[in-house]
């Protein structure tokens, strides 16, 4: 055996089968074609194949791995039973972590890993590693088989009368029936949701003439003097409560942000007119896909959407400066009511949020 543990580079002793594609396959083929297939190299025995002590060592390693796995499973059960779920422990280098989660994961991981490592080590060191070849067979059927199938098919169609124009009416009406029957399933999907009414619900928000503007942080109606120049306040319409059934649907359209600018910094006259003493109220729902676009840069008056980085210039009618948004943030016309509170002068003039087909 040991005489075979030499480089297989020069195995040409006739012991290995020469499996060349050439028809002659004689030993001198190599002389004719230096690139001929030399055939499968001879099997190189491993140390475990030659030395029983090495094989024993491998056996012990595999057994050890399986034993460690068993111990790890016991560890898992103990961790589950003993470690409180709310404990927090410092574990280097992970920091303060849940010791329950940590030990459950590590013991489970170890139990599984050791089974895998044991099985792989077993197969690599102790099971035979002799390679063998299996022939492939062409997938395509032989002409005889194909002819037989075609004949069977012809017989079948003839017996059913489906082909050759004999029972065309049956065939066509069957296709018709099969084509129509799925329609029932499609019709059933109609009530998945209500009609979009040409986008009407997307245009309408809770803002009406006189609706007070509620500061999200304080829950109180905003007054002009609550806002200093350079500040931004997140707000929502009066009458909207977190516990309302439709809170999410309403806030998804009605959420606004107010900024206060120096009136001379406002570049767009209409925008200035729609505000109050430099206080401008914009929809904060990005016109791209609807994230709240509220990363505000005080010095430049830019508002950035953290989702796709659309940037709006709040001093210039919230027009789009950069990014994938297609149009400006809608502005809400505001005024001050007789009690000195900021209030809307009506709903948005254009629908807030992402655009849609009927938006116009």
């Amino acid at each position: 055996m040991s005489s075979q543990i030499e480089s297989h580079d020069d195995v040409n002793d006739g012991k290995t089968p020469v499996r060349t594609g050439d028809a002659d396959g004689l030993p001198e083929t190599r002389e004719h074609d230096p690139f001929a297939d030399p055939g499968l190299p001879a099997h190189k025995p491993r140390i475990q194949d030659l030395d029983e002590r090495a094989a024993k060592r491998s056996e012990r390693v595999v057994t050890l791995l399986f034993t460690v796995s068993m111990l790890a499973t016991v560890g898992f059960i103990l961790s589950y039973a003993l470690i409180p779920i709310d404990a927090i422990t410092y574990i280097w280098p992970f920091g303060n972590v849940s010791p329950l989660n940590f030990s459950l994961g590590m013991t489970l991981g170890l139990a599984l890993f050791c089974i895998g490592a044991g099985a792989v080590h077993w197969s690599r060191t102790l099971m035979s590693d002799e390679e063998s070849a299996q022939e492939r067979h062409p997938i395509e059927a032989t002409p005889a088989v194909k002819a037989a199938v075609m004949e069977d098919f012809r017989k079948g169609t003839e017996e059913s009368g489906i082909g050759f124009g004999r029972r065309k009416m049956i065939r066509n009406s069957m296709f018709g029936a099969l084509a129509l029957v799925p329609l029932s399933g499609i019709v059933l999907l109609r009530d998945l949701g209500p009609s979009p009414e040409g986008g009407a619900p997307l245009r309408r928000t809770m803002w009406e003439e006189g609706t007070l503007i509620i500061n999200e942080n304080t829950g109180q109606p905003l007054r002009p003097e609550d806002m200093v120049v350079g500040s931004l306040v997140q707000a929502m319409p009066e009458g909207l409560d977190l516990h309302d059934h439709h809170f999410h649907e309403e806030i998804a359209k009605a959420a606004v942000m107010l900024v206060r600018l120096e009136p001379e910094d406002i570049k767009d006259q209409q925008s200035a007119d729609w505000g109050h003493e430099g206080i401008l109220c914009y929809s904060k729902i990005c016109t791209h896909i609807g994230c709240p676009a509220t990363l505000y840069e005080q010095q430049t008056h830019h508002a950035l959407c953290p989702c796709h980085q659309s940037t709006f210039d709040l001093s210039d009618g919230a027009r789009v400066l950069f990014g994938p948004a297609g149009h400006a943030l809608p502005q809400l016309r505001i005024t001050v009511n007789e009690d000195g509170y900021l209030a809307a002068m009506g709903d948005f003039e254009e629908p807030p949020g992402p655009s849609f087909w009927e938006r116009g």
Partner: protein
Amino acid sequence: MSTTTNPPKRETRSGAPAGEKVADWADGRLGVYTVAKSNMRKIFPDHWSFLLGEICLYAFVILLLTGVYLTLFFVPSMAEIEYEGSYIPMQGVLMSEAYASTLNISFDVRGGLLMREIHHWSALLFVVGIFFHMMRVFFTGAFRKPREINWLFGFALLVLAILTGLTGYSLPDDLLSGVGIRFMEGAILSVPVVGTWLQMLVFGGEFPGSLIIPRFFVAHVLLLPGLMLGLLVAHLLLVVYHKHTHFAGPGRTNDNVVGMPLFPVYMAKAGGFFFLVFGVIAMIAATTSINPVWVLGPYRPDQISTNAQPDWYLGFSEGLVRMMPGWEMVIPGGYTLNLGLLVPLIVFPLVFAVIALYPFFEGWVTKDKREHHIAERPRNAPTRTAVGVAWLSWYFVALVAGGNDIWAIHFDLSINAITWWTRISFFVLPVIVFIITRRICLGLQRRDREKVLHGRETGIIKRLPHGEFIEVHEPLSAEKRYALTAHDQPRPAELGPSVDENGVPRKVGPLERLRVRINRGYYGPSGQIPKPTAEEYREITSGHGHH
């Protein structure tokens, strides 16, 4: 006089072990011996890259196991409740039952957090595995006849895996996943003509409504995994039926498969590998937190956190959306066309279709109708390899765009500059990468040719008696020589004479002209370096074989 011939009755040996008796019983009902005869010692070839597909399979099994566990606790409902669990910062906060039950799994179910993390890590690994597995199949040409259909099955599995991931990470209804759903709403709204209808039907009313999570849930736990399971079984059956490809080498031809038998070696190796994968994921989950939904809070449409990123496999679509300029137009009739979203929505599937349909494209270009069971070395198919790497660079650009905020923060770059870089690179980079990759492949082919003809450089410099220095080359072994020259080098296609044998002008359609042109790019002088011929080899080895 019955003519029925009964098969010879098999005697179960009286002293047979119990296992054999059970097998006999099963064989009488299921024919297990016949199945085992053809499969038990089935040969599987060995190569590290063949493990990539196995990783996907195992990740899928782990996903099913942990996923079933999670459904025992998860409540797929958007009904608002006040949180009363043990996570103090959220106590008293109004949130959906979906989010509350996710917190409950994380803080009140022992091992629940671990299962959530194993589930999420496996999902990431699953899609990573699919990508790498597909790269292996693509770059070795293992998609060629007869495996094109299995390539499509695999591709469908990738698409389904991405959809399952999307519906899965949307379920906890935390601030981040809610933003993902909002994104979906915006994307659906941008569909021309039927966008608002689709939005209303998908969400059951206005965004967000109270139906989207239950609907995603059923897709995530039943519909999509069911489809995947079916496709997966078909995928594996075809692997068994076609037999695995192997790399060319001594004794390894297109007509055989060389390796080790399923039983016992592959059962032990592949079975063991499942436990290795599971074990490693469990340890990752134990030590590395993923998607800590409790820090984000419940979803509210008017709130957002920064660094909002989808899971990595959707970074590509995210990037397309981020790099697209905000083009929007009102077309005659007063309808809005939101190209800023529509274009990425169309480009996204198209980019994927390129890779799905590539095998059919190559089959059309090469007109190669033979069965291929030898995995090609990527260098020996330079044009295909270049297409693949160019596609990856395309993907990479969009991935960078998808994380442009993160790149901007970590590398202290302008986000606008990064976005502009991605906009330009999306068109330019794949072309550059294509050219470079092809050149590298050709260079490697030249090196192989050199090695076959002149042998391996030993690094030994020898001084001859008359003072000349030569570098000693060692001739390659017959095995290596065969492995380096076993690949086919098809001849480039020709347009053929402009007149047929009777002198009648032949009509060659523009499509055929195009095909021949592309084919020459694959197999012409710019597409492959001729491998050494026996004459060249003999001339060189007999000429100055004194090295």
